[in-house]
């Protein structure tokens, strides 16, 4: 019974999680430096007279933190 359940779950997750997708490699090379708040970023943009690249995202995937 338990063995069948484990087998069914394995099939289910194989279906949900195709191999190789969702792999986040360790970063290499230079990275963008991000301001984390609108107030600080816009204040700095106004002071330096630089245009703004604005991105918004949720730091979780299916409620799991640690991944975009």
């Amino acid at each position, binding site marked *: 019974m338990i063995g069948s359940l484990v087998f069914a779950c394995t099939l289910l*997750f194989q279906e*949900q*999680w195709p191999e190789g*997708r*969702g*792999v*986040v*490699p*360790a*970063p290499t*090379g*230079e*990275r*963008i*430096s*991000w*301001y*984390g*708040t*609108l107030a*600080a*970023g*816009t*204040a*700095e*943009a*106004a*002071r*330096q*007279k*630089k*245009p*703004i*690249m*604005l*991105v*918004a*995202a*949720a*730091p*979780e*995937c*299916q*409620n*799991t*933190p*640690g*991944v*975009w």
Partner: protein
Amino acid sequence: MSSQAVVAASRGFICIRLACFENPEETAFLNELAAKKPGKLKNSTFALLTPDAKTRISRVGRTPFVSYESDAALAEAMQKASEKYSEQETPPRSVPWSASLRLGLNIASCDIVPLVMVVASSEESRNSIEQALAPIAWSPEFVGVFEYARVAALEEAKAISGVPQGDCVVVVEPNEFGLAGKVLAATTSIEPAAIAETLRAGRQAYVPKGKDTHSLIDAARALDIRWRDDPGPEAHRIRRD
């Protein structure tokens, strides 16, 4: 966004990355900028804006690729846009802080980078450390290397192990979920040379490890770990699509 051409072009911009559903004022700004229907903000947004944040330079979409067909096209557009504003170079004066330690730790884990955390118990101490840290954070050696977060007291940093007593600058390795971390290097000095050396040591000690999103989600479910948007009193006003 990790294309080296885009990273190089980003130096002519102020880059702001917001967490969509954490701050009611920021969510309202994003709703106004990007939501097709009021209150229907999606969980990603991209825009290029003028320095006063009032005028769009690009189309607003969920990703840059609504407007640009490739990283190279995005980098070229950014380069052209920033040339209009680059008459004189003004040195950065502020550290690119995360909104909070909680978010900074999570985002550092998402980006697979170490976190620099500052503990400063007074405004005077905070200003002194920021004055020393800002030029280091934007120096060619360290720009884009770390996430940054600050707290006013050690009690706010209970999720981090190994933080020394007193005001300090520490480099933290976040755990895989970005909910806790351990100190890799620390200094209680506010001398720029000591801070730079600490960042250097922390960077060297940090070993980036790639992640498998699906394994992480499975592990989180097994451990009953869930990210919750800012638990502050106003959080209930923010609703995701």
